[in-house]
């Protein structure tokens, strides 16, 4: 065995190559293997299988609705996190923060617009995704449980949207939440108690605002994220996207 000489000169010369290969985990082999490795060697892409059925790529089949919902969630998470830097969940300040976003903060108004319109779009996309899955019969065995997870995600989307609706603390928000919380109070036996705990009091005020805020920025997004993880994982485990039986 001949000892390899490690010279600092070589190291510097090969620096870009070495950094690149340390990050990318390159695989030497056939082009086929390299393509597979590009997917399973990457933590963000390895949610995909190395190979997918051609049917999964047919845009006319899926309309990309599930993916669009996920992207809208990502856009909402990023824009929402940025908005948090300028938002205070206080009945005194919340509305002024909205005005500040509109007139004082650079790009504040566009960020708020992105957050609001993506939220509307996400509700629509999730609902349409459910329609697609129904009309293609994709909820049938073995994908029953993933349909249930999907319904839970639809509910999460609605809750997220509803809790976010109160945060600007304008007339639209205040009365929509007054009406919504009073609907909950009609539930038999525990309706009044649900309303009291939901609002943290008898009327929509500071306690309700902070509760909706915590639900909107912490509890519900985390719950949605966990459910999404299960949803995507189950797609793989249940044999990929649904498709007609092989002939």
């Amino acid at each position, binding site marked *: 065995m001949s000892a390899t000489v490690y010279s600092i000169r070589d190291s510097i010369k090969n620096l870009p190559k070495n950094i690149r290969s340390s990050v990318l985990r390159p695989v030497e082999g056939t082009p086929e293997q390299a393509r597979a490795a590009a997917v399973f060697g990457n933590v963000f892409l390895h949610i995909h299988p190395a190979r997918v059925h051609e049917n999964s790529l047919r845009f006319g089949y899926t309309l990309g609705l599930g993916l669009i919902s996920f992207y809208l969630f990502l856009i909402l998470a990023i824009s929402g996190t940025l908005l948090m830097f300028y938002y205070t969940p206080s009945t005194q300040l919340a509305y002024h923060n909205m005005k500040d976003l509109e007139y004082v903060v650079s790009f504040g108004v566009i960020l708020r617009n992105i957050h609001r319109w993506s939220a509307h779009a996400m509700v629509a996309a999730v609902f349409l995704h459910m329609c697609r899955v129904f009309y293609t019969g994709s909820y049938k065995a073995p994908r029953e449980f993933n349909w249930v997870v999907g319904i839970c995600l639809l509910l999460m989307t609605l809750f997220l949207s509803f809790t976010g609706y109160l945060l600007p603390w304008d007339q639209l928000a205040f009365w929509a939440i007054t009406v919504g919380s*009073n609907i909950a109070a009609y539930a038999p036996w525990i309706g009044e108690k649900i309303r009291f*705990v939901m609002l943290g009091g008898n009327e929509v005020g500071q*306690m309700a605002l902070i509760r909706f805020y915590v639900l909107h920025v912490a509890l519900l997004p985390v719950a949605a994220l966990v459910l999404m993880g299960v949803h995507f994982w189950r797609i793989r485990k249940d044999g990929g996207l649904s498709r007609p039986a092989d002939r």
Partner: protein
Amino acid sequence: MELNNFGGAATMPDGLDEGRRSFVKKVTATTLALGVGGIALQTGRFLKPNVLYEPARAFKVGDLSIFPIGSRIVIEGRGVEIVRERDGIHAVSLTCTHLGCLVKQVENDPDVAYACPCHGSTFAHKGEVLGGPAPKDLPWYEMYMDHTGALVVDTSKVNRERTKLVV
């Protein structure tokens, strides 16, 4: 061996070992159930506030002199209307019994006195439902005069008999 007295399954009679196992299982399951249940109950209780920083339910609305006979005066911020008539005075809630919107007074209508802007419930002068989805009449609240002579409305007490305060 010392070990055998505690965990050596090999030399233990089968029955004894089974008994011990099921006992440990039961203890574990009970502890878990009690722990999880207790945390759930405590969390639920934690979320129910004990002190509310809301306006007091009983409040002064002012002297009798500011309510002339025949007037219907809305107390801003309280969702209450004070109605003074020849035979007495009473307080009507302006919170719609349907979903809690504030009802609006209707001018120049012999029958309808209040209409809800949210879902179109209508109420008569005494608060009875005339139409729309509202399930109950607008309640009257208890009223009394305190020792300084100011009128007080207590919105935590509903005046079920709809008796007017004679002044």
